[in-house]
Structure formats: structure tokens, C-alpha cells
């Protein structure tokens, strides 16, 4: 398990990681998601005791990294697949790392086999393709048969087959009860690989929830429904819920309806005699939700708002930025977070709501 409490890293007056608190649990793949420059690598380096936090702390298996008796036996990490001397053979690279922690040479051959590099083990690693380099980096992480594994962008530059191999490996390692912490800037990849997501943007925690929840709340197709009479809203909500939909009231007075097709929504409203002013289809891809979330971090800082990490899971499903702690108008436009894909509907929702 990895546990960060108030983890902070600043360089001068620039804060790379701000007050991160999270737990990475064993037995599942935890995706560490954020755009480039969000502070993922800095966080990973702090976990590994390479960078000293300026505030807060992080422990691995209950100990600060530098206090671990023999770190590679507990934690394996792939930070940078390019971090090898090109003139050194794959086997010697791993051997030098193995010897650092008293791991026998036989284990080197074992991990080479696991990652499928046995045939090139004695070749100079400088000639390796990107994919082979990644495999070598992963082999290094596996050397000590550690309970905790960190992978920083492990699929970068891999071909589809390589990506799939990494994905399967992560899942297998997690299924063995290990703690697997994988960073990525690709939402789509994490949606397929991870069981749990920790999302950061601009060094701040944006979300910490199971991937399934994240998908349900962020990537569904939904209908936006506006009733002519605001008083009929609650009635319609219970009817729709009764028909199996998830209904989220939105700040502007509209309803976000998930799980029912538009014609069904229309039929239900018609039968109940509820007049609709708006019934529009919307699609939010995970990628969009993720971008919206991480870009929102900029606005949080400008507004001096509360910690987005304090927002309960579920707060992200309302269509606003995560946590929505901002007064209306202070944040990004509340109704256009989906890339403006549906320009025809909701013209002036806030006026209509009044």
C-alpha cells in the first residue's frame, strides 16, 4: 500500500504538487492520471525517496521509502525506460540492479523471460526499440518480486500489441494481490487498465474513485431535460427514476437523465402531461470529462476555492467542474463543458431557470 498525506512539492514559488492525500490499495490497478506536467512524475519520485517533499509525507508499506530495509524487495519501479546505459547489455543492466539488493543472477534470467527479452539479453540495450526498452524497464521493476509496483507511463511509445501486453501484466500483478500504481496521461488507456483512478491536475487531487464510478458519472450518453413548469420537475424525476433512469438535477434547473433513450423520456413526459422545453442528446467521452476536470484546476487556483479533493465522489457528475465550489459565473461556463458539440439546444439556460 502507498499512502500520501498532504504531499507537497514546490520549487521556489512554483508548486508542482499541492497537498495530495491518497491511498493506493493492494489487489488492484490504480491509475494515476493527469496531463503532462500535472505532477505525476514528481509524486512518483517522492514516493521513491528520490525527491524530498517540501510538505507532507508519503509511505510505502508503512515506511518512508528511505527507511525501507531493502527497497527493491518491497517496491519495484519503472520511472523512465530510457534510463539505462545504451552500451550495457540488457542482462548486465539488470544484473547491476539485482546486485544492489542482493538478488541472485538467476532471477535476472527469470524476469528477462517474463518480459520476453531472453533472446536479446546479451545485446547492447542502446539498439533496443522503444518497446523493448519499456520491457527492460518493467523487468527491472519486477526484479525483487516486490509487493508494490510503480510504473510511470509504461505504455508510452508502445505498439498496440505492447500496450495490451503491459495491460495484461498490470492486471495479473494486481490479481496476485500486489499494489500496482500506474501513471498515464491517457484516459482511454486507464479506463481499460485501471480498477481505481486517482486524477490530478496542476498538482492537485481532482478525483479518487473506482474507474467504474468515474465512467458512470462522466462518460455516459445522457439526455438533458427541461420542463416548462419548474414545479413539475420533481414529479418527472420520480417517474424517470421509476423507469430505471438515473436523474441528476442540474444547477440551471435542467435534469440530466442517464439510462433512458430520448423517445422513452419523451413518452414518459407525454403520458404524465409534462410539457418539455428541452430534450437534447448529449455525449461526454471519458476523455472530455477528464480534460474538463484537469483544466478546471486552473480556475480553482485563480478563484482561491476550497480543495477540489474535498469534494465527495459523485460531485463530478453534475456537469460543472469537479466539486463545483464556485459561485455561478466564477468558473468555466457551466453548460458548455462538452466541447460545444451540441450548439443547438440550451441557449440561455440560466435565464430560463429563473
Amino acid at each position, binding site marked *: 500500500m502507498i499512502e500520501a498525506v498532504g504531499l507537497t512539492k514546490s520549487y521556489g514559488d512554483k508548486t508542482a504538487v499541492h497537498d495530495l492525500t491518497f491511498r493506493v490499495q493492494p489487489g488492484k490497478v490504480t491509475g494515476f492520471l493527469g496531463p503532462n506536467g500535472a505532477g505525476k512524475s514528481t509524486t512518483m519520485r517522492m514516493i521513491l*525517496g528520490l525527491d524530498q517533499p517540501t510538505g507532507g509525507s508519503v509511505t510505502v508499506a508503512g515506511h518512508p521509502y528511505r527507511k525501507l530495509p531493502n527497497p527493491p524487495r518491497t517496491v519495484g*519501479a519503472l*520511472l*523512465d525506460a530510457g*534510463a539505462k546505459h545504451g*552500451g550495457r547489455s540488457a542482462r548486465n543492466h539488470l544484473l547491476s540492479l539485482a546486485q*544492489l*539488493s542482493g538478488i541472485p543472477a538467476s532471477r535476472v534470467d527469470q524476469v528477462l523471460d517474463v518480459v520476453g527479452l531472453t533472446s536479446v539479453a546479451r545485446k547492447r540495450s542502446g539498439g533496443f526499440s522503444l518497446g523493448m526498452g519499456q520491457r527492460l524497464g518493467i523487468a527491472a521493476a519486477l526484479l525483487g518480486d516486490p509487493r508494490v509496483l510503480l510504473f510511470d507511463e509504461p505504455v508510452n511509445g508502445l505498439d498496440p500489441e505492447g500496450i495490451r501486453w503491459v495491460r495484461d501484466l498490470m492486471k495479473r500483478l494486481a490479481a496476485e494481490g500486489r499494489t500496482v500504481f500506474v501513471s498515464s496521461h491517457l484516459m482511454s488507456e486507464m479506463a481499460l487498465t485501471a480498477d481505481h483512478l486517482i486524477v490530478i491536475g496542476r498538482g492537485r487531487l481532482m478525483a479518487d474513485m473506482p474507474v467504474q464510478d468515474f465512467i458512470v458519472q462522466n462518460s455516459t450518453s445522457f439526455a438533458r431535460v427541461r420542463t416548462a413548469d419548474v414545479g413539475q420537475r420533481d414529479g418527472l424525476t420520480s417517474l424517470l427514476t421509476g423507469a430505471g433512469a438515473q436523474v441528476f438535477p442540474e444547477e440551471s434547473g435542467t435534469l440530466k437523465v442517464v439510462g433512458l433513450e430520448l423517445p422513452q423520456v419523451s413518452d414518459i413526459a407525454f403520458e404524465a402531461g409534462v410539457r418539455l422545453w428541452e430534450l437534447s442528446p448529449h455525449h461526454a467521452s471519458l476523455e472530455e470529462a477528464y480534460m474538463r476536470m484537469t483544466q478546471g484546476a486552473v480556475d480553482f487556483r485563480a478563484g482561491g476555492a476550497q480543495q477540489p479533493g474535498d469534494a465527495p465522489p459523485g460531485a463530478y457528475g453534475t456537469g460543472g467542474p469537479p466539486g463545483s465550489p464556485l459561485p455561478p459565473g466564477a468558473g468555466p461556463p457551466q453548460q458548455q463543458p462538452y466541447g460545444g458539440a451540441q450548439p443547438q439546444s440550451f441557449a440561455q439556460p440560466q435565464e430560463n431557470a429563473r
Partner: protein
Amino acid sequence: MARNGRVLHSEWTKIRSVRSTVWTLAAALVVTVGLGVLICLLVRTTYDDLSPTDRATFDATMTSFAGMTLGQLAMIAFGILVISNEYSTGMIRASLAAVPQRGTLMAAKVAVATLLALVVGMITAFAAYFPGQAVLGSRLASGIGDPGVLRAVVGAGLYMTLIAVFAMGVTWVLRSPMLAFGILIPFFFMISGILSAVSATRKLSYWLPDQAGSMIMSVVTPSQERPYGPWGGMAVMAAWVVAALLAGYLTLRRRDA
């Protein structure tokens, strides 16, 4: 203790598994010996043209180490590369993640590299001395049994070692191979020589690591009086090396990897 052994073992694997180790050390040996022999040959043929003062202070032993001015650059390159390889490749992160005790890692790396430099330095010193004297011929040559000669030869090996360790210490501070090469090579190849040639800075140059350290190789007292003897000069050089290593350690301990 077990951990120190493991780290030493690993550092040995690292150093023997890259070609730059072989190339730089081989270059140090070949250049020092080859150039030394060439210069001895040159001196032998031109000895009779020398002025009486030059003849009086002629130092046969030191002449056979003349190739070291160039050979030491290869030794410096070895010292730089053995440390900067870790940084330029990013391997340092993996190494420090495996051994968070940074002093241990540094000590092991420096120890292994120093030992290797010492072996090659000593071989180079003896390999430069005997052929050099043979080329000089019996009229000019010194004997290994003559007073101070064995000290000078062993000292030459020590000098080669210390110059490499000094480069290691500086590289721990600078980290980047470009920076380390850009500073150390011009310094030892040109600046140190210029400072000692210009009369205004000559006294200052006595205290530079290479100028002080090279005193150990002279058997005949040089015309310019120095404020220290052969071992005193070596001590000055050693002080530089200790300072460089200390600066390197403080840098490594304090900075983020």
C-alpha cells in the same frame, strides 16, 4: 556490511560492462606510454644541443612521464564518465531507488572506480618508465634503484589515480558530462599550464592540483623553488581530491535526484 558488499558488487558490474571504461583507461595507458617514449627519443637526439643549465637539471625519470600531460586527460575522461553515465542515462534514479543511502552508493562507486584507476595508473607508470629509460640510453637514463626514482614512478601512478578521483568528485557536483568535460579538460590541458607559465600567476599555480601533484614525479629538484617537497605536493593534490569528493557528497545528499 552485507549491503556495502552488494553495492560494490553492483558497481563493479556497471563499470566492467560499458566500453567507455576500457577505452578511456586504455587511452590513458597508450597515450602516456607512447608519447613518453617519443619524447624520450626526441630528448636523446637533441640532448647535446641543450643549454648547460638545462643539462644540469635534466630529469630522466620525469621525462619518461612527459606523455602524462595528454594521458591524464583520458584518466579525467574516465573519472567523468564513470559518474556522469548515471546522470546522463537517468540510471541514477534506479540506483538511488535501490540504495536510498546515498553516501553508500557514492562511496561504492568511487571506491570501485578508484581501485581500477589505481591499477591502470600503476601499470601505466611502470610501463612508461622502463621503455622511456631504455630509449634515453645508458648515458642519460636513471635506474629504478637510484634515490627517489621508485618514489617518482609509484607517485606517477598515484598521480594518475588522484586526477581521476578529482574528476569524479567534480562530476558528482556538476552531474552533466558536457559541463564536466567543458570545465575539467580545458583546465588541465591549458589553463593550468598557462597559469604556471605566466610569472604573475606562477606562485598561485603551485597550489593547483596537477601542478602540486606532479612534483612527486621529479627526481631532480626543479629550478623553480616550490614551497613543498614531492610528498607535500601530493598532499596538496590529495586535499583537492578530498574537497571535490566532499562537495560531490554534499550535492548528492541535498539535491533531488
